[in-house]
C-alpha cells in the first residue's frame, strides 16, 4: 500500500486512541506459585522424588479408578448385550402393533446400527486425539493439555480439550486458496472420509456385535480403505500450492504400495480361519493351548509373529503416520496435502486419520488377538464381556501406533518404497508358503 502523501497525513487529525489499559498480571505470593529454588525444577531431582509429588500420585490413582470403573461397567453391561435378540424382537412387536411392515422395522434396526458405528467413529475422534496428545506429552516428560474443562481447577488433565478444539475448528474461517480448483478442493475431504466410514461396517466390536455380518468382510474393508487415497491426491492437486502437490503425489505412491503387504500379510490368518468373515475369524481363535496360552493367531509359532509385524507396519504406513509420514512431513513439505485446508475441512482430514488408526487397531485385534476372547480361562477374566476385551485390545494396539510415532524418525520416500517392495512383500509370500506347510502337516482342518 503506498505511503500516505504528506498533506494527507497532516490533514486527517489523529482520532484520540481509546485508552488501552493493559491487564497487569501481577503475580505475588497469594494467587500463584513462585518457584524460588530453581534447582528443584531439575529433571534428576523430580525423577528421584516422583512419589512425593502430589500430581504424580493423583494421576496414578485416577488411572486405577478409570480401569476399575471400566471393568465394573463392562461386567454390568455384559448381561444387557446377551439380550440383543430380545431387543430386536421387542422393536419388531412394537412396530407390528403400530402396523409397520417387517421390512421397515429391519430398516430401523439397520439405521440404529449405522448411527452406532458413526458414533464410534466420532467419539473415537474426540478420544484418540486427546489420548495421543497426553501420551506424546508424557513420553516427552511434559504434561499435555491440562487447562481445558472446568475453569476452577477440577479439570482432570484437560478432558475437554478436543471438544473445544472441535468447536474452534467449526468456528474457524474456511479458506479456499485463490489458486485452488474450488470444486475439487471442497470435494476432497468428503472423498477421504466417506470410504473410511463405509469400511467400518463389517468390523466386529465383540462376539456377534458386527454392524453387518458380511461373508467377505476383510475384502470389503480393504477395498473401501483404498478409495480414500483418491481424496488425498485430489486435496494435494487442488490446493494449488507446490508443497501440497508433492505431498499428494507422495501419499498416492505410499498408500497404494502399502496396500499390497497389508493384504498379503493376513492371508495366513484367512487360511487358518478358513473364511473372510471377521466374526468367523475371531471365533476361530477361541480355545487355549496347554490350558494357558490362548489360540490367537499372533501366538502361532513363526507365521503369526511375521504376519502381525508386517500388518502392523503396513497399517502404520496406511494411516500416513511416522515413520511413514512423508506426505505431511513437517520439515520438508510444511504439512503436505492438507496445508491449504482450514476449519472444518482440515478437521475432517484429521478425523479420517484417527478413524483409520482405530480401524487398523480393530483389525489387528480381530485378526491376531482373538477379538472378544479372554486371554486367560480363569474366573475374573471370563466375567468381562467380549466387547470390552475387544476395546482393550484395540486401545492397546492404538497405543502401539502412538508409541511408534513418537519414537522413530521418518523414512525417505525412496527408502519407504524399497522397504515395502523389496522387504515386506517377499516376507509376506514366504509367510504364506510357511502357513501352507502348517495347514498341510500340523493344522488338519
Amino acid at each position, binding site marked *: 500500500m503506498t505511503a500516505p502523501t504528506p498533506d494527507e497525513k497532516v490533514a486527517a487529525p489523529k482520532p484520540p486512541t481509546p485508552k488501552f489499559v493493559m491487564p497487569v498480571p501481577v503475580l505475588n505470593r497469594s494467587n500463584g506459585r513462585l518457584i524460588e529454588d530453581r534447582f528443584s525444577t531439575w529433571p534428576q531431582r523430580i525423577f528421584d522424588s516422583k512419589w512425593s509429588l502430589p500430581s504424580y500420585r493423583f494421576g496414578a490413582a485416577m488411572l486405577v479408578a478409570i480401569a476399575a470403573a471400566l471393568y465394573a461397567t463392562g461386567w454390568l453391561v455384559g448381561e444387557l448385550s446377551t439380550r440383543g435378540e430380545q431387543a430386536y424382537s421387542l422393536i419388531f412387536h412394537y412396530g407390528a402393533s403400530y402396523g409397520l411392515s417387517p421390512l421397515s422395522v429391519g430398516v430401523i434396526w439397520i439405521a440404529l446400527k449405522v448411527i452406532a458405528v458413526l458414533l464410534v467413529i466420532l467419539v473415537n475422534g474426540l478420544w484418540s486425539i486427546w489420548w495421543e496428545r497426553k501420551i506424546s506429552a508424557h513420553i*516427552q516428560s511434559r504434561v499435555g493439555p491440562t487447562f481445558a474443562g472446568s475453569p476452577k481447577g477440577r479439570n482432570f488433565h484437560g478432558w475437554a480439550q478436543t471438544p473445544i478444539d472441535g468447536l474452534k475448528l467449526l468456528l474457524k474461517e474456511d479458506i479456499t486458496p485463490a489458486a485452488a480448483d474450488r470444486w475439487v478442493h471442497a470435494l476432497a475431504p468428503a472423498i477421504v472420509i466417506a470410504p473410511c466410514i463405509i469400511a467400518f461396517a463389517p468390523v466386529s466390536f465383540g462376539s456377534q456385535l458386527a454392524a453387518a455380518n458380511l461373508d467377505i468382510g476383510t475384502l470389503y474393508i480393504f477395498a473401501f480403505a483404498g478409495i480414500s487415497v483418491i481424496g488425498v491426491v485430489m486435496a494435494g492437486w487442488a490446493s494449488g500450492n*507446490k508443497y501440497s502437490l508433492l505431498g499428494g503425489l507422495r501419499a498416492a505412491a505410499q498408500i497404494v504400495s502399502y496396500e499390497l503387504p497389508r493384504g498379503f500379510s493376513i492371508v495366513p490368518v484367512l487360511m487358518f480361519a478358513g473364511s473372510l468373515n471377521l466374526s468367523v475369524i475371531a471365533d476361530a481363535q477361541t480355545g487355549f493351548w496347554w490350558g494357558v496360552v490362548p489360540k490367537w493367531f499372533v501366538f502361532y509359532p513363526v507365521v503369526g509373529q511375521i504376519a502381525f509385524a508386517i500388518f502392523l507396519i503396513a497399517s502404520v504406513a496406511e494411516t500416513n503416520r511416522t515413520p511413514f509420514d512423508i506426505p505431511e512431513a513437517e520439515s520438508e513439505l510444511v504439512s503436505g496435502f492438507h496445508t491449504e485446508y482450514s476449519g472444518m475441512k482440515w478437521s475432517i482430514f484429521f478425523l479420517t486419520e484417527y478413524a483409520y488408526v482405530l480401524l487398523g487397531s480393530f483389525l489387528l485385534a480381530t485378526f491376531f488377538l482373538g477379538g472378544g476372547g479372554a486371554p486367560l480361562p480363569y474366573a475374573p477374566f471370563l466375567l468381562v464381556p467380549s466387547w470390552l476385551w475387544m476395546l482393550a485390545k484395540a486401545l492397546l494396539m492404538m497405543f502401539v501406533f502412538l508409541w511408534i510415532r513418537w*519414537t*522413530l*524418525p521418518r523414512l525417505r520416500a525412496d527408502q519407504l518404497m524399497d522397504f515395502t517392495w523389496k522387504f515386506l512383500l517377499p516376507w509376506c509370500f514366504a509367510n504364506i508358503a510357511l502357513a501352507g506347510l502348517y495347514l498341510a502337516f500340523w493344522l488338519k482342518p
Partner: protein
Amino acid sequence: MSNQVTNAPSNSPVKTDQLFINLGPQHPSTHGVLRIGLTIEGEIIIKAVPDVGYLHRGTEKLAEVRGYHHCVVLSDRWDYVSAMPNNLVFCLAAEKLLGVKPPPRADALRVVMCETNRIASHLLFLGTYGIDLGAFTPFLYAFREREMILDLFEMLCGARLTYNYIRLGGVMVDVSPEWTARLKEFVEYFKPRLDEYDTLLTYNPIFMSRTKGVGLISAKEAVDWALSGPNLRGSGVNYDVRKHEPYCGYEQYDFDVPLGETGSCWDRYFCRAQEMRQSLRIIEQALAKLPEGPFMATGVAKIPKPAAGEAYAHVEASRGDLGIYLASDGGISPFRMHVRAPSFANLAILQEKLTGMKISDVIALLGSTDIVLGEVDR
C-alpha cells in the same frame, strides 16, 4: 547401499517440467532466516542457490564506533547459540593487542564455560536434527538437558544466551562453590543421557539409513571449501584448534578428537555426539584442578587504547574455527574487525552439494552442517 543418485535426472526418458521452490526464509528446518532457491524435477534437485543476508546487522561496521569492552557485548550476537566462544575469541585478540595476560584461574574458567556452552549448543543441534528427520521426542529430551545448563549460566552471569561473561583480561565474576557443585551434578546426570540419545537416534536403523550415505563430503573437498569443526572432522581430517594451537591452557587437559570416516551426515552427527562426551571429560578435569588466585588481570583500562597493530586469534567454537582479525590504529575503537565465521564457510558448500539430491536429503544435509544464521550474516 549408497543412496547417492548416480544418473543425472536430465537424461531420464520421462521429461517432467521443472518446478522452482523457495525453501525458506520462513521454513521449519532452515535453522534461521536462510532461503534456498531449489529448481526441482520430481524429487531430484537440479539447481540450488542459497541466499543469505537476511540477518546481516553489520557488526564489523558497528565495531568501528565502539570501545573494546563494548565489542564483547557485540560478540554475543554472532553465534547466539553458543556465545561464550565468541566472547573468548574477541578477548584473546584484544588481549594480544593490549599485551594483557589473564591469570590462570581465568583461563581455567574460560575453558569450563566454553566447553559447557559447547554441550548446550550440540544439544540444540541434536534436538533440531532429530526433528528435521522426523523424530520429535529427542528434541524435548535435548532441551530438557539444555535447560539445566542455561540455569547454570543464568546463576553465574545473569543471562541465558547473551552472556557477556568473558571480559578483557579475565572473567566478569568468580565461580561460587555451589555453582561448581551444581555443574558436577549436571555432569553426573548427563552421562547416562548421552547413551540414551545413542539408542534413540545414533544407532536407530531409520536414522542411519536417512543419514549414512547422504551428503558425502570427501576430505579434499572439505579442506578445499575451508569447512571447519565437526563438518571437517566428519570427513576424517584431524584439525581441531584446541589441539593445533592450544589457547587458554587446553594443552593441560587430555581429551581426544572424534573423527568420522566417510564425511556423510551421520559422521558429522556422530562427531558432535562424541564431542559432548569429550567436553564432559574436559569439564571434570578443569573443575578438579581449578587454580586459585584472581579471576581478572589488573591493569586493563576502563577505556583501553591499544597501540597500533594487528592481531589474529582463533578458537574452536561449537560450529568450527572462529577467528577474529583485529586491527587497531591506537584509537579507542578497533580500526577493523573481521570475523571469520565457520558457519559462513560451512554453508558455502551447499550450493555444490545439493544438486542431484532429493528434497528430504536437503534437510538432512542442511541440518547436519549445523549452521547458525547470526554467524553467517554477521
